[in-house]
């Protein structure tokens, strides 16, 4: 009975996520105005259901007269791209490194694990602040920073699985028969590993979106004038009492997207029932 209810929530979440993605892709068509166009005369107009609002700007305008709804839609692109691309790259890199480390062991494994330990001891945000100060802000740099701080989780899980599988009879038998390592990894190891990876990856997307918002809050995210939800929250926090709509909408958007992704991840975890360390 639980499974069915969970499934309902997961399906609803997927629909919401699909809708958000569609909105992001269709942003140019759905936006009432250009997100970068600023017009000082239209500063800080409230949403249209408030006094002083207008239908031309349904969710109001920001401090430079830019339309909030348009920025919200274009901002969805940034958040989703940052979230998914980061996870795909860090996942791929982490899985590859984890498999190699687990399978071949030796110094490669040692180096990877030590690097991972060092990285974990580095407060994540600090790593972001330091690296972005070196590299400068930018979408590519941001993704790079998030990838660097994220790969280790996947690597650990995969390594653990690889280690335990390595010594199973069928693997040893296959090796004895002369099977290529690559084939082994591809055919036998990876399929056993994708379940926990999928779960972790899903939660990672959510965490990455929040991380992007946090870095933007510190002024290090995707640079102006590109709209991103985190940056919009950052701009809006100075106007909480006078321009509440500036922070409310992007904050709610982040909350909503992260929430549905977490729900999907929850369902995935229950469905796949992988032996993932609960501490992830």
């Amino acid at each position, binding site marked *: *009975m*639980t499974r069915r209810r969970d499934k309902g929530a997961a399906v609803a979440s997927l629909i919401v996520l699909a809708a958000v993605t569609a909105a992001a892709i269709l942003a140019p068509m759905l936006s009432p105005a250009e997100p970068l166009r600023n017009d000082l005369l239209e500063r800080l107009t409230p949403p249209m259901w408030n006094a002083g609002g207008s239908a031309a700007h349904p969710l109001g305008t920001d401090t430079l007269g830019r339309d909030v709804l348009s920025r919200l839609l274009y901002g969805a692109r940034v958040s989703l791209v940052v979230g998914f691309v980061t996870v795909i790259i860090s996942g791929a890199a982490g899985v590859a490194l984890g498999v190699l480390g687990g399978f071949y062991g030796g110094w490669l494994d040692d180096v990877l694990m*030590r*690097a991972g*330990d*060092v990285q*974990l*001891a*580095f*407060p*994540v*945000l*600090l790593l972001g*602040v*330091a*690296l972005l*100060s*070196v590299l400068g802000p930018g979408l590519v740099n941001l993704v790079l920073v998030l990838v660097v701080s994220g790969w280790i989780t996947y690597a650990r899980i995969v390594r653990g699985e690889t280690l335990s599988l390595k010594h199973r009879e069928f693997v040893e038998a296959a090796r004895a028969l002369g099977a290529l390592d690559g084939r082994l990894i591809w055919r036998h190891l990876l399929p056993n590993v994708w379940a926990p990876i999928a779960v972790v990856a899903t939660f990672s997307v*959510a965490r990455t979106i*929040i991380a992007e*918002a*946090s870095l933007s*809050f*510190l002024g290090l995210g995707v640079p102006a004038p590109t709209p991103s939800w*985190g940056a919009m*929250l950052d701009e809006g*926090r100075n106007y*909480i*009492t006078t321009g509440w709509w500036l*922070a409310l909408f992007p*904050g709610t958007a*982040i*909350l909503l997207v*992260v*929430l549905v992704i*977490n*729900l999907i991840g*929850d369902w995935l975890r229950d469905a796949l029932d992988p032996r993932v*360390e*609960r*501490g992830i």
Partner: protein
Amino acid sequence: MPSFLLRRLIHGVFVVWGVVTAVFFLVRLTGDPSAFLVDQSATREEIAHTRHLLGLDRPLYQQYAAFLLAAPRGDFGTSIRDKRPAMGLVLEHLWPATVELALAAALLSTVLAVPLGIISATHKDRAADHVSRIASLLLQSMPGFWLGLLLILLFAVELRGFLPAFGSGTWRHLVLPAVALAAAPLAQNARLVRAGMLEVLQQDYVRTARAKGVPERGILYRHAFKNAAIPFITVSGLSLGFMLSGAIIIETVFAWPGLGRLIVQAVPGRDFPVIQAGVFVFALIFVALNLVVDLLYAAVDPRVRLG
């Protein structure tokens, strides 16, 4: 056990060294602070002179060697901005500010998680469980600073200073930042306790105990919880570590004079000694916590000791 401890200690030292070295070279890649220390109308020669006085024109390996020699004595250099010993500055900000905040938040997020998780587990699929699940999901989906801003808006502005919005000093100042910092981990921990309890409650030996007629409460506390303790210990230990990290943003929102904020401010200012000292302290604490967690693990689960 002693060899286990020794191995972990060596490992810890290595990790701290690795972190500090990485930071050392990383921040020097970002340039140097000489230009900050002079007037806007300074010439290149003056800036070069300042750089020389700071010792930043020496070759990197020389600077690193000097650093390695001084660090074990606790000498991390002088803050370029404040002209005071860097480690002193760091410790001033660590204690009591960040420690207070991290401890308060860690306590909130672990101690409260236990009863919440147990209630969820024992009332599985009933109203309390659903409410807790929704609340937990919401809290985990919110960026910490947004929750902080909402709390400020509600308690400090709307309720006219019922709780202060800034700074530190009394226990009242600690409430809002600690809650903002603890919220997401609390939610996560409660779910973990719930999951751990559920898993254990379904296991054979529990069913056996039930069949034998052992009262429910005994089952809960003696058998189930002790085994659910292992992931819980891991999580609590790491919680404190992540508190230090998450504290950075919370400290910024609430103007809490802590170490996270100090380091974040030192980075754009290229205040190398402070950055290095601060990261060293962070890494040290994190490693020490990990060590304690590992030891607790070893105490609870004998298999680990041999691993």
